[in-house]
């Protein structure tokens, strides 16, 4: 490894782990604020920081900082009869695999460092790179993923499976019945849903013909997003991923109404914080996996390595070259944006659905999701075989269909943005009820005094 490679590796680790930590922290805020918006409440807005007499509330984001600070100063309680070594080890075991999992997730296409900019006598120019072709000589090319392992997704499975260990050890070492029950539930639930996670992706691997996550994304860029070729697998994987991160409606391991707080009942201070944080980071990593495998990773519709080119099959519609640096920035932003959107969607799921009963959970896992994923593998196998024997005309038709899905994605994005923009500027009249003296007093004063905590 040369010095440059080490430097690039460090930068990539900084980007990925930094994103993971920051998004985990922001998600704790987003969860509270989004749930407040869903439930017609105001949500956290009290934490304030004063800089030169100006108050900053940052929409309640400071509550996250205050929470983190609080975790450090709380008493670190260990139950007298707990296994002290395992008790301290469990939060680390819960956190480690989540951090290690992002190593194989690509957040951008291969960057040809030498083509980012050229210094010429007349100024700096930003060249474009060819869409296909050999890696450029000299410095780079740099893959935008931390560890280009050729086992790819199998590594992700292996680490996702480690999440059980932390939960199980936490419950066992706490010397508490509720913790033990929670650990049992967590272990059996995660083992059950791991099966679905693995099997639902087999279909995707068959279609893409690779287990490397960056090659999967490249396939999706050249053809169509995974959600269109494997809709059932996307759905199954999404359900199983929510179950893996132990969130509502699958939060039985920590069901407050039954088990106090499940396997981390006895934890306090930063050890609890690590469990809490690992749970939120697990949402981020599961969203990253979903985006990478099914939602096109860093790809945007019609945006290729050399620029934008709109084709339908072999019919060329429009194309333009874009500088390599711009393409790279668009792709990285697209990846992280998709991840954030999916995290937010998971919060919607969490705040809309009730919790399953335990037998329902097991039935769903073993009797519904597992047979469905097996059927998906079967169907995918048949289709992959069938398309392999198609003539040139039929393959051309598939190519057109793939490009139509790209156009559909593009139109959907534009439609969503337009709907939100139009909805934002549409005025919403309010209706007044002047019943009771309180309302009449308020009316006489010209409305209730606005609160200074508007954010």
């Amino acid at each position: 490894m040369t010095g440059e490679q080490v430097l690039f590796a460090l930068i990539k680790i900084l980007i990925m782990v930094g994103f993971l930590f920051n998004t985990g922290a922001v998600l704790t805020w987003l969860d509270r604020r989004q749930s407040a918006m869903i439930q017609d409440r105001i949500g956290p807005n009290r934490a304030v920081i004063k800089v030169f007499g100006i108050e900053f509330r940052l929409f309640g984001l400071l509550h996250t900082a205050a929470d983190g600070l609080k975790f450090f100063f709380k008493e670190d309680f260990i139950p007298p009869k707990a296994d002290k070594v395992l008790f301290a080890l469990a939060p680390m075991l819960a956190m480690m695999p989540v951090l290690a999992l992002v190593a194989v997730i690509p957040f951008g296409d291969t960057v040809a460092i030498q083509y980012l900019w050229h210094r010429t006598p007349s100024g700096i120019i930003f060249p474009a790179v060819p869409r296909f072709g050999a890696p450029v000589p000299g410095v780079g090319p740099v893959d935008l993923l931390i560890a280009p392992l050729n086992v790819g997704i199998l590594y992700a499975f292996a680490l996702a499976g480690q999440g059980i260990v932390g939960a199980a050890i936490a419950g066992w070492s706490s010397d508490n019945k509720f913790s033990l029950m929670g650990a049992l539930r967590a272990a059996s639930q995660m083992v059950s849903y791991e099966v679905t996670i693995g099997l639902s992706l087999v279909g995707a691997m068959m279609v893409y013909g690779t287990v490397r996550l960056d090659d999967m994304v490249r396939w999706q860029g050249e053809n169509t997003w995974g959600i269109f070729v494997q809709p059932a697998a996307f759905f199954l994987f999404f359900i199983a991923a929510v179950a893996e991160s132990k969130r509502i409606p699958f939060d039985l391991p920590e069901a407050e109404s039954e088990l106090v707080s499940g396997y981390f009942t006895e934890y306090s201070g930063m050890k609890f914080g690590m469990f809490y944080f690992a749970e939120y980071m697990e949402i981020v990593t599961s969203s990253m996996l979903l985006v990478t495998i099914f939602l096109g990773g860093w790809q945007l519709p019609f945006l290729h390595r050399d620029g934008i080119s709109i084709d339908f099959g072999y019919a060329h519609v429009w194309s333009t070259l874009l500088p390599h640096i711009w393409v790279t920035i668009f792709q990285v932003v697209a990846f992280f944006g998709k991840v954030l959107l999916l995290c937010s969607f998971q919060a919607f799921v969490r705040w809309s659905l009730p919790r399953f009963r335990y037998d329902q959970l097991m039935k769903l896992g073993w009797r519904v999701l597992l047979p469905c994923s097996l059927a998906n593998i079967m169907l995918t196998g048949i289709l992959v075989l069938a398309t392999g024997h198609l003539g040139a005309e039929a393959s051309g038709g598939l190519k057109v269909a793939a490009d139509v899905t790209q156009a559909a994605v593009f139109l959907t994005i534009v439609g969503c943005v337009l709907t939100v923009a139009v909805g934002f500027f549409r005025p919403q009249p309010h209706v007044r009820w002047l019943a009771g003296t309180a309302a009449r007093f308020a009316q006489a004063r010209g409305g209730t005094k606005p609160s200074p905590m508007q954010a």
Partner: protein
Amino acid sequence: MNATFPKKPSRSADTVVVAHPDRDAHVQSFLPEVVHGISVSMKHFFHNTKEMLKDTRPDPVLERLDVGITTISYPEQKRPYPDRFRGLHRLMQREDASPRCVACLCCSTACPAQCIFIEAGEYPEGDKRRGYERFPVKFVIDELRCIFCGYCVEACPCDAIRMDTGAHAVPYDSRDQFIFKKDLLMSFVGRDGTHLTANPRHEPGEPTHPGIDRSHAHG
């Protein structure tokens, strides 16, 4: 053991047997309802986020039944109390800023919680009111003991005590602070911001004063 269990009562004629709910795929798969639930969540989310960002939330008092966030941010925002709300007591004042109270002990007698203590005193020799009225040397209300029934206000013959401050006891640090003394009670104002009432008291020596003093009354 020869336990006999009560027989299951036979079904009466007007019993309605409810059929088992339909369990078709639409219901059993939960999916349509899941989608519906999430869409309701999203509707509220986007509506409330928009109003939060544009700062057009409904007024929490006037538009409290409207769609959206109608939370009152309490210490900063308050719902006005209704007209006849019985809040903290206050002692009314005369034109010369002395208390209207004549220390007749009607209020402390009427008080079911016995939270009013009055120590009556005579006006000094030479005062025009001496012999006609007394005045409260001490007037103490224990606001922790008070049950806010309003009987003291009804019992008062000279409109000297009222509960129309529109304020309620704030959470103080210690119990001593809930013992309201005369000066504090006299410093409170009503909703109109004054210490006075609309019916001024007839002072001894004025032509409208009945002129009956205590020596007359008790012969």
